[in-house]
C-alpha cells in the first residue's frame, strides 16, 4: 500500500488491520514464554453456601503442582470491585454464586493443572439462595451480603421530573405493561486471560486482556496489598470485550499467582465454559411501565419501576441501572415522569457492563409502549415517534436540558424517506404461503461518557521520536472498536505525516498515561479531544524549533509536511530526523488533558446516584427492520435492516459503519436467540452449542445511513457511536412481529418457540 496521510473523514483502513489479517498481532492470549507456569481456579459450583473446608493436600502432593492458594493466602483486602469492593479474589467464608473462586492452582502444564483442580476437596454447606429479584426483596430473604446495610438491595433510586406519576391521572390514554429481558453474554471470542511474572526488582508485570489497565492497577493494589509502583500493566489489543473486560477478571488472581511463581511467567486463560460461569453478564431486568398520552399522541406522563438482577456482586450494577433509568423514557419529550429502580443482589452470575449499559433493556420497554400507543390511537408508529422526538433545547424525560446535538428527529425522518419504509406495504404482500411479513421501527439513544460525579478524563501523549517519526501513546484500550485508528487519523490530520511514519503505543501503565476505561462510547471523544490539543502543541513546537534552523523570522511561512518542516517562502526545509536530533527529549513530547463537559442543570432528583447521572451527550438512531415469520415454526427471519444514526460528525466512515453493523448483529442476537438460562443460579447453556450467537446466515444486509450533525464539544464534531446501535434491534423486531402477526411480545428473546406459542394463544382467543 502506498503511503498516505491518514486524515479525518476518510475511510482510512485500520492501523491494526495488517497485523491482524496475517496473524501477527499479539493479543494477551498470544503471550507464552519459556518455563511457563499455568494457573487455574477451582470454582464453587454452589450458588450460595458457607465454605467448611478447602483441603489442598492431595492437589499439593501431585507432581508438577507449584502451589495451591486459598482465601487465607491473599495478602491484601481480598476485595475487588469497581465502585463497591464486595467481591473476593478467593472466597474465604462464603460463596455467593457458582463462579466464585475458592482455590488457585499453579502447575507445570495444563493437564497437571486440571488434575490438581479436581483433587482439591471443597466442602460447602449450602445456604438457601435467592435467584429472582422477587425472592431477594422478600423481608425474610437470605442475604447475599450480610454486611450490606440495605440487605439485598444494592441500590434503590428514583428520578422524578415535572409532576411525576400524578400526571398520569389526567391523561386521555393510559397504557400499562410489564416486560422481561434475560441475561445476555458478551461472548467475545477471546476469553478472559493474561500472563504475569515478577521481575528481579520485585515488580510484577501483567499483560492482560482488559478494558481498563490503569484501574486494574488500583484494583490489584487494593485487593493484594501491593504498592502501586510494584505493578506494571500492559493492555494489548483485545479480542473483543463489549464491557465484559471492564473490571477484574483474571487480574488479581494472576498477580497473586505470580507472587508464588519465583519469577516464572504464569498464564491463566479461562475456557469458554469458565468465561460463561465466572465472567460478567448483561443484567436481566423486569420493567413495569405506565404511559399516559393525550388523544393526539402527545406523551404526557410516564411511571416506570425497573428491577435489575445484578447477581452476586456489585460490579457496575448501580451505574448500569442509573443509565437504564436515565433512558427509560426514550428519546422523547415527556414532561412528567417518575422512574424508580431497584438493583438487587441475587445468587446468580455477576451482571455488569455490556454495550448498551442498562439501556438495551429499557429500549425494549419504551419502544413497545410507543407501538402499543400507536396501535391504540391508530397512528403511524413512525409519525408518533417523530411527533414526540426530542429536539435540541427540550428537556428530556429526566429533566436535563438538551444543549448539545440532538438528532433523533432527523434519524426518524431519514428512515421515513427510505424505500424500506415507503414501500413496506407492497413488500409485506409478497410473503409466501405460511409466512407473514412485518416492518418495525425503533427510536433509540445512548449516553456518552461517565456522567456527573466521575471525571471523564484522558491524558494524551504524542512524541516526535529520535527517528523523526510520530508516536502516539494511547492510554485507553482498543477492544476492537477502532479508536486507535481514530488516534492515528487525528495525528495525521494535524501533523501531516504519512501513515507509515505514525506509531501507536497501546496502553501500558508506565509508557502511556491514565485515560479512563474503554467504555461508555467515550474513547475517541475523550482521548481524541486530548490528543488534538497535544498534537497542536507538538506542531507549534516543531515549526517553532524549525524556525531556528531555517532562519525564519516568522512562523507564518513554515509548514509541517510529511517528514519535514518547510519554509514556503524560501523553499528551505529541515527533515524531522534533524529536528528531532536537535530537540531535547522532553521537548519532543507533548501531553494534554481533556475533561468531558457535564450537565449544568441542577436536578433535584436521582440523588442516590453517586456517579453516572446525568449525561450531557447522547447519540441517536432510528432503526427499521423487515422480517418474515414462519407460521408453522414461529421462526423469525430478518430480511432487511436499516439504521439511520446521528453520532455527530464521522471521523472514519468505515469504522463508523463497522460499529453500526456490529452493534446491530449483537442486537439481533439479543432479540432472537441469546439468553443465558439459569437454574438455581447455575448456567445450563455455558457454550456456543446451546447459547446461540448470530452466524453469517443470521444477519441480513444492513443499510447504514449517516445523519449529519455537528457536536461542538467533540473532536472534529464527533460523538461516540459504539453502543447506540445495540439498543434498536430488539424493539424494532418486536414491533415488526406485531406488525406481521398481531402478537405483542413482552418477554425476550423472541425465539421460535415463544412466537409459536403466542400465535397459538392468539388463535385460541376469539
Amino acid at each position, binding site marked *: 500500500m502506498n503511503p498516505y496521510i491518514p486524515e479525518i473523514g476518510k475511510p482510512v483502513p485500520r492501523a491494526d488491520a495488517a497485523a491482524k489479517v496475517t*496473524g501477527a498481532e499479539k493479543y494477551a492470549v498470544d503471550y507464552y514464554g519459556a518455563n511457563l507456569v499455568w494457573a487455574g481456579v477451582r470454582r464453587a459450583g454452589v450458588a450460595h453456601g458457607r465454605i467448611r473446608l478447602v483441603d489442598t493436600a492431595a492437589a499439593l502432593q501431585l507432581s508438577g503442582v507449584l502451589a495451591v492458594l486459598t482465601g487465607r493466602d491473599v495478602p491484601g483486602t481480598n476485595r475487588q470491585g469497581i465502585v463497591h469492593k464486595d467481591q473476593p479474589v478467593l472466597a474465604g467464608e462464603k460463596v455467593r454464586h457458582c463462579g466464585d473462586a475458592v482455590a488457585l492452582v499453579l502447575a507445570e502444564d495444563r493437564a497437571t493443572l486440571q488434575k490438581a483442580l479436581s483433587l482439591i476437596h471443597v466442602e460447602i454447606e449450602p445456604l438457601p439462595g435467592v435467584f429472582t429479584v422477587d425472592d431477594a426483596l422478600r423481608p425474610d430473604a437470605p442475604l447475599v451480603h450480610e454486611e450490606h446495610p440495605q440487605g439485598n438491595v444494592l441500590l434503590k433510586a428514583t428520578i422524578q421530573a415535572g409532576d411525576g406519576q400524578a400526571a398520569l391521572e389526567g391523561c386521555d390514554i393510559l397504557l400499562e405493561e410489564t416486560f422481561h429481558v434475560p441475561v445476555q453474554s458478551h461472548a467475545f471470542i477471546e476469553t478472559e486471560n493474561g500472563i504475569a511474572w515478577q521481575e528481579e526488582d520485585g515488580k510484577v508485570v501483567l499483560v492482560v486482556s482488559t478494558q481498563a489497565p490503569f484501574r486494574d492497577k488500583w484494583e490489584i493494589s487494593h485487593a493484594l496489598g501491593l504498592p502501586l509502583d510494584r505493578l506494571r500493566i500492559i493492555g494489548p489489543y483485545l479480542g473483543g470485550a463489549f464491557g465484559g473486560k471492564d473490571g477484574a477478571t483474571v487480574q488479581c488472581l494472576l498477580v497473586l499467582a505470580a507472587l508464588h511463581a519465583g519469577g516464572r511467567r504464569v498464564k491463566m486463560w479461562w475456557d469458554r465454559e469458565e468465561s460463561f460461569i465466572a465472567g460478567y453478564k448483561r443484567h436481566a431486568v423486569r420493567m413495569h411501565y405506565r404511559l399516559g398520552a393525550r388523544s393526539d399522541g402527545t406523551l404526557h406522563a410516564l411511571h416506570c419501576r425497573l428491577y435489575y438482577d445484578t447477581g452476586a456482586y456489585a460490579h457496575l450494577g448501580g451505574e448500569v441501572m442509573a443509565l437504564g433509568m436515565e433512558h427509560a423514557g426514550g428519546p422523547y419529550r415527556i414532561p412528567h415522569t417518575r422512574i424508580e429502580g431497584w438493583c438487587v443482589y441475587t445468587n446468580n452470575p455477576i451482571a455488569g457492563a455490556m454495550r448498551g449499559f442498562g439501556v438495551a433493556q429499557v429500549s425494549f420497554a419504551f419502544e413497545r409502549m410507543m407501538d402499543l400507543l400507536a396501535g391504540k390511537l391508530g397512528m403511524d408508529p413512525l409519525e408518533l415517534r417523530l411527533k414526540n422526538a426530542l429536539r435540541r433545547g427540550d428537556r428530556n424525560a429526566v429533566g436535563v436540558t438538551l444543549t448539545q446535538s440532538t438528532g433523533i428527529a432527523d434519524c426518524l425522518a431519514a428512515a421515513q424517506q427510505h424505500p424500506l419504509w415507503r414501500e413496506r406495504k407492497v413488500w409485506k404482500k409478497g410473503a409466501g404461503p405460511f409466512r407473514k411479513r412485518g416492518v418495525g421501527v425503533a427510536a433509540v439513544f445512548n449516553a456518552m461518557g461517565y456522567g456527573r460525579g466521575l471525571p471523564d478524563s484522558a491524558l494524551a501523549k504524542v512524541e516526535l521520536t529520535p527517528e523523526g517519526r510520530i508516536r502516539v501513546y494511547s492510554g485507553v484500550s482498543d477492544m476492537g472498536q477502532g479508536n486507535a485508528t481514530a488516534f492515528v487519523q487525528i495525528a495525521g490530520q494535524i501533523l501531516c505525516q504519512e501513515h507509515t511514519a505514525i506509531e501507536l503505543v497501546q496502553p501500558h501503565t508506565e509508557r502511556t498515561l491514565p485515560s479512563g476505561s474503554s467504555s461508555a462510547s467515550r474513547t475517541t471523544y475523550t482521548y481524541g479531544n486530548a490528543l488534538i490539543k497535544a498534537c497542536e502543541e507538538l506542531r507549534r513546537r516543531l515549526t517553532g524549533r524549525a524556525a531556528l534552523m531555517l532562519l525564519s523570522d516568522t512562523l507564518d511561512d513554515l509548514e509541517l509536511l510529511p517528514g519535514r518542516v518547510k519554509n514556503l517562502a524560501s523553499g528551505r526545509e529541515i527533515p524531522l530526523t534533524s529536528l528531532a536530533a536537535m530537540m531535547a527529549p522532553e521537548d519532543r513530547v507533548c501531553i494534554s488533558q481533556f475533561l468531558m463537559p457535564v450537565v449544568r442543570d441542577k436536578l433535584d432528583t436521582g440523588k442516590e446516584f453517586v456517579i453516572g447521572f446525568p449525561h450531557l451527550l447522547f447519540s441517536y438512531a432510528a432503526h427499521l427492520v423487515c422480517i418474515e415469520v414462519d407460521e408453522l415454526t414461529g421462526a423469525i427471519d430478518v430480511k432487511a435492516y436499516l439504521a439511520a444514526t446521528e453520532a455527530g460528525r464521522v471521523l472514519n466512515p468505515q469504522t463508523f459503519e463497522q460499529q453500526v453493523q456490529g452493534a446491530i448483529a449483537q442486537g439481533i442476537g439479543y432479540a432472537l436467540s441469546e439468553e443465558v438460562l439459569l437454574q438455581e443460579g447455575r448456567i445450563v447453556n455455558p457454550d456456543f452449542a446451546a447459547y446461540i450467537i448470530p452466524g453469517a446466515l443470521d444477519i441480513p444486509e444492513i443499510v447504514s445511513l449517516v445523519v449529519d450533525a455537528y457536536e461542538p464539544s467533540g473532536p472534529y464534531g464527533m460523538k461516540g457511536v459504539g453502543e447506540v446501535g445495540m439498543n434498536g434491534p430488539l424493539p424494532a423486531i418486536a414491533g415488526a412481529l406485531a406488525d406481521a402477526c398481531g402478537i405483542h411480545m413482552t418477554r425476550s428473546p423472541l425465539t421460535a418457540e415463544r412466537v409459536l406459542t403466542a400465535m397459538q394463544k392468539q388463535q385460541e382467543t376469539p
Partner: protein
Amino acid sequence: MTIHFILNGKKTTLDAPPDRRAVDVLREDFGLTGTKEGCGAGECGGCTILVDGESRLSCLILAAQLAGREITTIEGISNEDRMHPLQDAFIQDGAVQCGFCTPGMIVSATALLNRNPHPTRADIRTGLSGNLCRCTGYQKIVDAVEATARREEETT
C-alpha cells in the same frame, strides 16, 4: 511420538504426545499464535486451519492426525513479500474489527474460494457460517470475500 508433516510449506518433524490438540501444538510448539482458540469445542471456527487444502478445526484434531498432512495456518496463507488477496481485501473493505476471528475467517474463506471461485453472497455466508464473529455483523467480511473473488475473475 514422532510426527512428520508439512507445515506452511516446510517439512516438519514434531515430537509430541499423540493426544495433544493440534491448536496447542501450533500455538505453543511452533509459536504460530495466529491460529486462535475461542471455544475449544468446534463451535466458533477461530482455530480453522487448512489440512490438505480443506478447512478443519485444529481444536478437534490431535497431533497424531497431522502425520503425513499438509497443514496451512494463517501465517502460511501469505507468502513473505506479498499478502494473500483475501488479506488485502479484509484490510481495504474493513472486515477486521477486534480481529480475533479474522485468521480463522480468512482460512475458511481461502478454502471456500478454492472450492467455489465464483460464489454469490449467499454462498459466502453459507461458507463462513462455521466461523463466529462477534464484532462485525459479517457484512464487510462478505464484502471482502466477494471483492476478492471478483478481482480474481478480472485477472483471469
